[in-house]
């Protein structure tokens, strides 16, 4: 049956349609109402002052506004394909394969496949030994075992956290003039890593970030959390204060502007990160293409109206269940074992709730009518269920927002998130504009596929790991020809590039979590931001390089300032960290080649790996390159060792011949450097 859902008139919330069993009659009635021309007189509640905005039908047809529907999967595919036995996840694969794919071309090898999986799940490479073991594992569960192993690897959380930190424009500093260091911001970053590793359900992950303080208000009032969960709920609210903040504005009587910018940023980032809504487009006027009014923007903003930096508030970050029995439970704060931290909590000031006005042209000096918190009107429900929590410390506004967002009937939340997961695994999402599910964004390659995955996510308790596992176990991900195709070639991100170079040369410091590491940076880079030269007593303005032993941690742990970018990383296309980045864009430019060929640390790492291969039994000494060259040890075996170490495989005969020829006049370290520069290392297989 070719059932077309009627357009959903604004009076009816699509959630209501899913939530209740909707009869066809109802739908037809609604459709009829819509057709009559939106006669609001009978349906508008009497206490509504203003008639809801009416949108032309084209806007209301926007795919992402429609309920997530399992029926559409069947409608779209079961009739259309000849292989009804395949699961919906597998269906689109037929459609994804290009017509001219030459199936006779060698498929991706087993080893390469594990390499791809490892890079996708933990962001680092599989070692020669891991690949060898996988290749020797002939059991049908061999692949599955690898997937499960990698999902349990704590490096999984590190890699996936990076994706989320891009989305929430994570930074360790304020931005603007002084760009002061936020000493405690890393606790939010570690919360994100932990959440991915512990597979915190995405609905909780969202809820805690938007309203963790509302749930754990008692902990804030008490001054310490009672459980690690309560602690994480507090730390998660770091999300609310990650945005840039012009703390110098008050010197110029511009604090109102700075405050409005914080709220604007929170509104726009929250819309983009969780809902794929481009609320930035309706800040100055109604949205040009989507059914979002300027009032919708400010009503959404009103959820954050009481939210303020509570810098004076300190909280003990050792939770009660992490404390030793007895002794350290007193709450007077004098216990030396306790660790009080300040300056990271963002919560409500219930005595200071901003009145949110619609701003003419988005200008804070031109306020118009005041608005109350409400969800986008097009969804039909405008009264949030706003109940202040018992502890009385917060307004309940953000909690209402988060509850609405995590309602399974919300048409955006699950779709937007599964799309991010898909993108992380395939390079491009089912919707290729992950922060824009509106009319100007890309249409999904398949709505049915997206909806199917979104519902599966909800049904499986919003489990990220479950979804990742499902996708990497799918035919779509495992198709050897597709994996091998040029279309799936992706260059490593800046962080992966650096991490992989350190990993394969044996230099990577595998420390997990903790305060950010400050890399050594050329003095002229620091000078380029005068604020850094203005160091202060509280050590928030300067640059404080960490000991060299810590310099080789994963890039995730590098300090992420807003005004100073680490040149080596910047070359590989770091995104701007003041606004949400839904997807990394990449370039391939000559300075990247210079960075890997010439930089001091890469060449030093190349020397290191060569030293370990040529002199495995001795302490590294002062043997010169010339001596190495003269060494009579089997060159073939050195080449093999370097290939295993760096590319996790044995060289082919051809490669061995070329490399031996090269070693006649060049050193092992130079060969290592060549291998570090290969495309094989720079791209995900």
């Amino acid at each position, binding site marked *: 049956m070719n059932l077309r859902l009627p357009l959903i008139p604004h009076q009816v919330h699509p959630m209501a349609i899913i939530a209740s069993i909707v009869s066809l009659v109802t739908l037809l009635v609604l459709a009829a109402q819509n057709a009559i021309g939106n006669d609001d007189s009978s349906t508008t509640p009497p206490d509504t002052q203003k008639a809801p905005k009416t949108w032309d039908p084209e806007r209301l047809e926007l*795919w992402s506004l429609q309920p997530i*529907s399992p029926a559409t999967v069947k409608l*779209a595919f079961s009739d259309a394909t000849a292989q009804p036995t395949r699961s919906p996840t597998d269906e689109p694969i037929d*459609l994804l394969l*290009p*017509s001219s*794919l*030459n199936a006779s071309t060698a498929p991706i090898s087993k080893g390469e496949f594990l390499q791809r999986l490892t890079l996708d799940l933990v962001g680092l490479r599989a070692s020669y030994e891991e690949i060898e073991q996988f290749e020797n594992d002939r059991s049908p569960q061999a692949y599955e075992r690898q997937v499960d192993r990698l999902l349990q690897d704590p490096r999984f959380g590190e890699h996936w956290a990076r994706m989320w930190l891009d989305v929430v424009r994570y930074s360790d500093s304020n*931005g*603007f003039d002084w*760009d002061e260091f936020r000493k405690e911001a890393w606790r939010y970053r570690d919360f994100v890593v932990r959440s991915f590793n512990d597979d915190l359900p995405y609905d909780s992950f969202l809820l805690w970030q938007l309203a963790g303080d509302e749930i754990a208000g008692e902990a804030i009032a008490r001054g310490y959390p009672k459980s690690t969960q309560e602690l994480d709920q507090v730390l998660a609210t770091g999300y609310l204060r990650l945005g*840039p903040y012009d703390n110098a504005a008050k*010197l*110029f009587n*511009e604090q109102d*502007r700075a405050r409005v910018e914080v709220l604007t940023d929170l509104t726009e980032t929250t819309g983009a990160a969780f809902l794929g809504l481009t609320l930035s*487009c309706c800040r*100055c006027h109604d949205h040009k293409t989507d059914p979002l009014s300027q009032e919708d923007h400010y009503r959404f903003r009103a959820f954050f109206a009481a939210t303020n930096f509570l810098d004076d508030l300190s909280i003990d970050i050792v939770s009660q269940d992490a404390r030793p029995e007895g002794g350290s439970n007193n709450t007077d704060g004098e216990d030396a074992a306790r660790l009080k931290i300040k300056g990271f909590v963002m919560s409500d000031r219930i005595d200071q709730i901003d009145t949110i006005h619609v701003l003419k042209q988005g200008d804070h000096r031109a306020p118009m009518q005041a608005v109350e918190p409400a969800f986008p009107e097009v969804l039909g429900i405008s009264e949030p269920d706003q109940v202040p929590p018992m502890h009385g410390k917060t307004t309940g506004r953000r909690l209402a927002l988060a509850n609405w967002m995590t309602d399974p009937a919300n048409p955006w939340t699950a779709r937007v998130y599964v799309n991010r997961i898909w993108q992380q695994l395939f*390079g*491009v999402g089912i919707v*290729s504009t992950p922060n*824009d599910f*509106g009319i*100007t964004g*890309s249409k999904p*390659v398949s709505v*049915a596929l997206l909806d199917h995955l979104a519902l599966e996510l909800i049904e499986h308790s919003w489990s990220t790991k479950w979804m990742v596992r499902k996708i990497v176990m799918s035919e779509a991900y495992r198709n050897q020809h597709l994996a*091998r195709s*040029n279309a*799936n*070639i992706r260059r490593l991100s800046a962080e992966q590039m650096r991490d992989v170079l350190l990993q394969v040369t044996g230099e990577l410091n595998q420390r997990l979590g903790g305060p950010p590491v400050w890399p050594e940076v*050329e003095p*002229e880079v620091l*000078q*380029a*931001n*005068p*604020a850094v030269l203005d160091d202060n007593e509280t050590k928030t303005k300067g640059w404080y390089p960490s000991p060299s032993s810590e310099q080789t941690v994963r890039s995730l742990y590098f300090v992420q300032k*807003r*005004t100073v970018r680490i040149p080596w990383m*910047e070359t590989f*296309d770091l995104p701007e960290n003041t606004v949400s980045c*839904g997807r990394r*864009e990449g*370039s*391939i430019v*000559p300075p*990247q*080649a*210079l960075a890997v*060929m*010439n930089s001091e640390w890469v*060449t030093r790492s190349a020397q290191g790996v060569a030293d370990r291969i040529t002199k495995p039994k001795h302490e590294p000494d002062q043997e010169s390159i010339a001596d190495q060259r003269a060494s009579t040890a089997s060159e073939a075996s050195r080449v093999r060792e370097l290939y295993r170490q760096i590319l996790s495989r044995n060289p082919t005969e051809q*490669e061995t011949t*070329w*490399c031996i020829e090269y070693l006649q006049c*060049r*050193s092992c370290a130079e060969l290592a450097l060549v291998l570090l520069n*290969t*495309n094989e290392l720079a791209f995900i297989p």
Partner: protein
Amino acid sequence: MSPELSSHIPFLQRRNFLRSLGAGFGALACDAMARPNEGIDPLLPMKARSPHFQAKAKSVIFLFMVGGPSQIDTFDHKPLLEKLDGKPVPESFRRALEGTKHANVFHGCDDHVMKSPFTFRQYGQSGMWVSELMPKTAEWVDELCFVHSMQADSNNHAPASYQMHTGDIRAGKASLGSWVTYGLGSESEDLPGYVVLFDAGPLGGAANYTNGFLPPAFQPTRFRSTLPPLFHLHPPTEFAQGQRQSLDLLSKLNGLHRSQRSLYNTDSPRDEADSHRAGQGSALEARIASYELAYRMQSSAMKVGDLDQEPAHIHSLYGLNDPESRTQSFSRKCLMARRLVESGVRFVQVYDMPDKDGWDAHAKLEENHRPRARWTDQGVAGLLHDLKQRGLLESTLVIWASEFGRTPMKQGELGRQHNAAGFTIWMAGGGVRAGIRLGATDEIGLMAIERPIQFRDLHATILSCLGLDYERLSFEVSGRDERLTGVAGSAKALTEILL
């Protein structure tokens, strides 16, 4: 889901699906640049592109004076200040300002007027007034176009500076240099198209000169005015000697790797999706090519960066032999800017700031401004002179500007507060009329009253000089066509000053 899709998917042609995929599933590293309507070659994003219309300027040198030099002590002569020195700001000026969005300019300063400690005189055929701070630049006033009525939307450094560079007081947008190279590419094949020269830079840091939302190919490259001019330009000595052999081996290994991945017949793609996919495969080729380009860049960057190749009279023209190291430092950047532009680099951003204060004279204006003017005056004049004598000034737009100016009111001990309500910038060459002035501040230089000009208008003017239609030069970000001149479409190029 959209009714269109839901009802038609069963009948969708395979091909259509593939076509939609071409823009989605298969896209990768280079795809961000492959926006066919912009004519950007994904493999050579910096390849020179035609402007929208006949351009006067081919390149830009932007001299950014960090911290807010005072307009009333340099180029905006206000004789009334003499008379009012030490007196309260006359009520009329105060009221006029307080009625505007710039009222906060009064915040933090005394109510009393402070006259300029510097003497002014007229120069050139045009009779422009310039203070004693800039005697060498003053010799070139007949080549300059002054705009005396600039206004910024914030009176604080970083937001105003972001706005000067990107059009927005919030960080995160794309800078002028990124926009220009996005629009035009670069004439130089083996040098970066958008170069930034620092000692110290502007407050607010990297967000000022970032590519923002534009593809990373249009990010700035940091150049030094000493050798080697680029980071990582040369390997340590033990890796240097064999570099050519290493690159040859690398090329062979990468070629082998590439050949194993030729799944698609790139010569005769069967349909659009195939050709798109074939293009994706060239990410591997692009990276292979980038190593050869990098190898060439090593020598071309050294060549352009070697200021010793310039004759002695050029060194002294710019002030490279000046006894003061800060003068030398700024002068070297000016000379480097000329050499880069001469080599086809599209956009050179120069920052003067030799220390953390810049021109930010909240106290002791005279002690702040005198040395800074001295350190920069000769480099600027030398650059104008040199561009002129080489015939490059016509095709090079030179801009001298800051994030704002300073108040006529005194602040602290003989200092001046920021002033976003009215300040001066100048431009020269590249399509702007010479020896003219546009707009004016009130009689005490407090607020622009004649032809107030916003940064977006200045940006529109700069793009116009380069042959770029500022309304057309756009980039879609999350559903919005972002432009350097703003999404509202309210910018207007300063047509009176265009040739």
